[in-house]
């Protein structure tokens, strides 16, 4: 699907082969597992087999006796040397260390680290470590974990509730009382995650002479080097994170603080570089990279004509055994808690519960996709209650183009949107009338067929406004991004970013933006990932922010350079800058194009001819720009209103599905998404992430689940039972673009890194429920696996 042409740009919004693709195509990626340092040691981990157990004793003699084994380190030893990991919340008694200290709190939690000359030896030795456990009762179900007599995951904290607050924005009770109708339901989003194909890995190397820890990691984490340094009790400038490591997928979860702190400690104590690369089981069980696990209790109040008045949402999230970033994932959706709709009041009660399960991390959308699923299910239920068409009900509540900027009850202002047009475009591309006919024909043949619809927002330009909202002691309002650019003596341009990439195409983004401003060929621009000591501050590619924030930082730095080039030309041409035109890197007099200085001449002056520089001018050609998230910087009001992310992308999914009556298998036969993320810097990259986000959403909707049995064991710890959609399950998806520029960003761009994932689960659930409607059945639990649907159909058959 080609993008709508955006006039006025030379490189932006045009098809261009992404810069970074080439190296991956020849096997030239540089992933952490591809790196090797001389004398490097390897780590294997002994993991807890119990969901909750006191660690009575650890016997490491046999392991240490194995030739090639260098060290066996316990959680107690580590905890003496490092500080607890940072959570951002006010829960001082919930201490988290890289390994279990005294007590193991979930199956797979690291208990002992074994370091050896090779990974194979380390694994052999890990099997020889004897740990004596005293199993304890465990907390499994999150609601039971909130009961007074539940086993406590962190007894010192005194409760399994890590965070709970009742937000009320607007006259919710009055609106519910006045509304003609209301519907209440429970929706369940079971635990899944992004599960990148590359597991997490880190190499740490300590130089005693320099007092410096070098870290190479497959990382996507704001403030990663600082957090590692703090935990290791080192100054920030004693940790150098190398961001030029290619990250093999992340989509939020590659946080790896505990891995990196452990590897850093081992490297420092052993005096040798240490590598810790998770194997797949370690990744899925002990990698602390699970995602949201939520129970939603939702009520929606509405009128005869479908107008929605108010919404009540309670979200209980089972975060697992430690806080991680998970509780804050209940905070981000506050920035779009009414979705794309005009809803006058909302009550929201986020509840974060700890249980004896693997720890959650940030997952694509930071909690928004489950919330979108809850909101969209409410819209479908309201329509069904009224007997109204689901699309018509949405149309009546969607914000109109002329209502922006629009402030929602929870305090965020949406920047821009054109929701009705995107919806219409998606319906047209899906050939909606024909889809309805197809569904009716299928039903006529006794088949289960349904059409799904969802209209969802992608808040983008990520900041951290949920931190002060959830923890008044945490006044983080700055969430900047930076770019440095230099033009060297040969006239070549190099742009530097201060974070790593995991497939989002940041090198292409930077090159395109810098080329656009400086009017130079993007292919000639080099983009590097500076290390953390060289780079300016970055908050990493979280919250769908890089097109906005890195793009904006790059544009700012490039504009400064352009101004400098014009200033140098003005000085040498004896003309005021206003009398000059910058074109393709040369600067010429507006009224006399022959009176000009070329790019090469300007570069030469800047680098070698100080006598030709304007007085006070800095020699060379370099500039940097650091900027704060637009609209950011505010603290919450006492009733919890705050501007969350600045920009709002919109997506509308239309899905046609058929369900096999015997197996319960859902087959997606048609998939169209209308998508508006403002100006796309590189349409192929945006489309790619959107297709991928939908594939991921299909997984969350139908297949993927980190399931636990009653004894607290994870029963889906491999790709045999945690099912990632393949090319068979993901249909041929059609994207329809629309462009409503954001007024807040440099080029009108909005975020798109979470696109597709934010609306796919809701749309698929909608299709499944439409298919089940003729049977009088409904389901609001994800994933809607074959087993779950099969069981539901069986209840019908049994009743018959």
């Amino acid at each position: 699907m080609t993008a709508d042409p955006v006039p006025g740009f030379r490189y932006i919004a045009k098809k261009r082969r992404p810069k970074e693709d080439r190296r991956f195509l020849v096997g030239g990626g540089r992933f952490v597992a591809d790196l090797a340092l001389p004398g490097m040691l390897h780590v294997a981990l002994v993991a807890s087999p119990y969901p909750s157990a006191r660690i009575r004793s650890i016997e490491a003699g046999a392991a240490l006796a194995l030739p090639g084994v260098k060290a066996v380190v316990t959680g107690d030893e580590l905890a003496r040397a490092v500080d607890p990991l940072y959570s951002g919340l006010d829960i001082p008694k919930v201490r988290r260390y890289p390994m279990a200290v005294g007590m193991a709190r979930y199956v797979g939690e690291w208990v002992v680290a074994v370091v050896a000359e090779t990974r194979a030896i380390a694994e052999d030795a890990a099997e020889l470590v004897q740990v004596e456990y005293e199993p304890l009762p465990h907390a499994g179900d999150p609601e039971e974990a909130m009961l007074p007599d539940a086993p406590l995951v962190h007894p010192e904290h005194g409760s399994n509730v890590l965070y709970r607050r009742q937000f009320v924005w607007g006259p919710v009770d009055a609106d519910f009382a006045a509304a003609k109708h209301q519907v209440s339901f429970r929706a369940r989003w079971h635990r899944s995650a992004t599960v990148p194909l590359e597991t997490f890995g880190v190499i740490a190397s300590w130089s005693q002479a320099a007092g410096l820890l070098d870290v190479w990691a497959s990382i996507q984490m704001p403030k990663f080097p600082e957090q590692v340094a703090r935990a290791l009790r080192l100054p920030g400038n004693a940790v150098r994170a190398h961001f030029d490591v290619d990250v093999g997928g992340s989509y939020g979860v590659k946080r790896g603080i505990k891995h990196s702190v452990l590897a850093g400690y081992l490297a420092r104590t052993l005096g040798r570089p240490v590598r810790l690369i998770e194997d797949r089981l370690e990744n899925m069980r002990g990698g602390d990279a699970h995602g949201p696990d939520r129970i939603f209790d939702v009520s929606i109040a509405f009128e005869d004509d479908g107008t929605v008045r108010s919404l009540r949402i309670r979200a209980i999230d089972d975060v697992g055994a430690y806080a991680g970033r998970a509780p804050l994932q209940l905070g981000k959706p506050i920035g779009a808690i009414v979705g794309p709709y005009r809803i006058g009041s909302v009550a929201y009660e986020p509840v974060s519960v700890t249980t004896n399960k693997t720890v959650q991390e940030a997952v694509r959308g930071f909690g928004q996709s489950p919330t979108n699923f809850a909101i969209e299910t409410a819209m479908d239920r309201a329509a069904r209650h009224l007997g109204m068409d689901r699309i018509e009900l949405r149309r009546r509540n969607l914000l109109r183009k002329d209502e922006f900027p629009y402030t929602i009850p929870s305090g965020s202002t949406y920047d821009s949107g054109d929701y009705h047009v995107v919806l219409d475009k998606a319906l047209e591309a899906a050939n909606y009338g024909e889809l309805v006919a197809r569904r009716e024909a299928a039903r006529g043949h006794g088949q289960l067929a349904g059409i799904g619809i969802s209209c969802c927002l992608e808040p983008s330009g990520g900041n951290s406004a949920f931190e002060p909202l959830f923890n008044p002691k945490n006044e983080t309002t700055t969430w900047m991004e930076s770019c440095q650019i230099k033009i060297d003596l040969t006239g070549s341009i190099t742009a530097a970013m201060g974070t790593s990439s995991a497939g989002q195409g940041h090198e292409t983004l930077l090159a395109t933006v810098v080329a656009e401003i400086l009017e130079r060929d993007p292919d000639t621009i080099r983009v590097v990932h500076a290390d953390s000591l060289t780079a300016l501050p970055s908050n990493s590619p979280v919250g769908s922010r890089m097109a906005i924030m890195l793009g904006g930082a790059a544009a700012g730095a490039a504009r400064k350079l352009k101004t400098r080039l014009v200033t140098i030309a003005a000085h040498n041409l004896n003309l005021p800058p206003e009398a000059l035109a910058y074109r393709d890197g040369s600067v010429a007099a507006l009224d006399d194009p022959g009176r000009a200085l070329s790019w090469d001449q300007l570069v030469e002056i800047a680098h070698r001819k100080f006598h030709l520089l304007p007085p006070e001018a800095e020699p060379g050609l370099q500039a940097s720009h650091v900027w704060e998230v637009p609209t950011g910087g505010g603290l919450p009001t006492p009733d919890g209103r705050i501007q969350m992310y600045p920009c709002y992308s919109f997506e509308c999914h239309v899905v046609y599905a058929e369900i096999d009556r015997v197996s319960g298998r859902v087959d997606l036969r048609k998939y169209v998404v209308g998508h508006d993320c403002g100006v796309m810097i590189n349409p192929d990259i945006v489309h790619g992430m959107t297709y991928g986000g939908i594939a991921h959403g299909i997984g969350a909707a139908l297949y993927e689940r980190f399931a636990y049995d009653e004894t607290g064991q994870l029963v889906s710890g491999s790709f045999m039972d945690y099912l990632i959609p393949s090319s068979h399950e993901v249909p041929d998806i059609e994207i329809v673009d629309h462009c409503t520029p954001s007024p807040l960003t440099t080029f009108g761009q909005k975020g798109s890194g979470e696109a597709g994932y934010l609306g796919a689960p809701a749309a698929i659930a909608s299709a499944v429920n439409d298919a089940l409607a003729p049977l009088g059945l409904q389901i609001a639990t994800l994933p809607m696996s074959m087993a779950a649907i099969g069981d539901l159909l069986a209840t019908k058959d049994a009743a018959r």
Partner: protein
Amino acid sequence: MSLHEITLTVNSAVHRGLVPARLSLVDFLREGLLLTGTHAGCEHGVCGACSILLDGVPMRSCLLFAVQADGCAITTVEGLAPGPEGLSVLQDSFWETHALQCGFCTPGMLIAAQALLQSTLTPSDEEIREAIGGNLCRCTGYKQIVDAVKLAADRLRGSNRAEGGVQP
């Protein structure tokens, strides 16, 4: 642990190695021969990131021991391009359609697609999806990969196949 001498051809170069019996082929390629283009995503045979061509047939190098490859000819992603400078038609087509993001599954995808194009230059969408059906990609949703393989097949059909066949 017993050591075994093996001789195998990888990307047209002959290699000899002394390997422990339990060494997997993927580890041998990556750590022994420093061919790190082949990736290990799951090491239990599901993801396909470790795919290589073994005597022309796509195989999972995490499920093979290095000793089992004794006497075989292997092609890895590093061996697909016609030379150090260029890209194969298939690789170039992946670039044209942006059939990758993080690049972790890409070597395995290229191997799977290569095997398909060696058997047919007129694959249907279904055949392409079948051919890459054992290779997981978490980034792309497969669409641009299917487009890339179609594009490569188109280009290869259009090229001169008079002598020596066509190298995808």
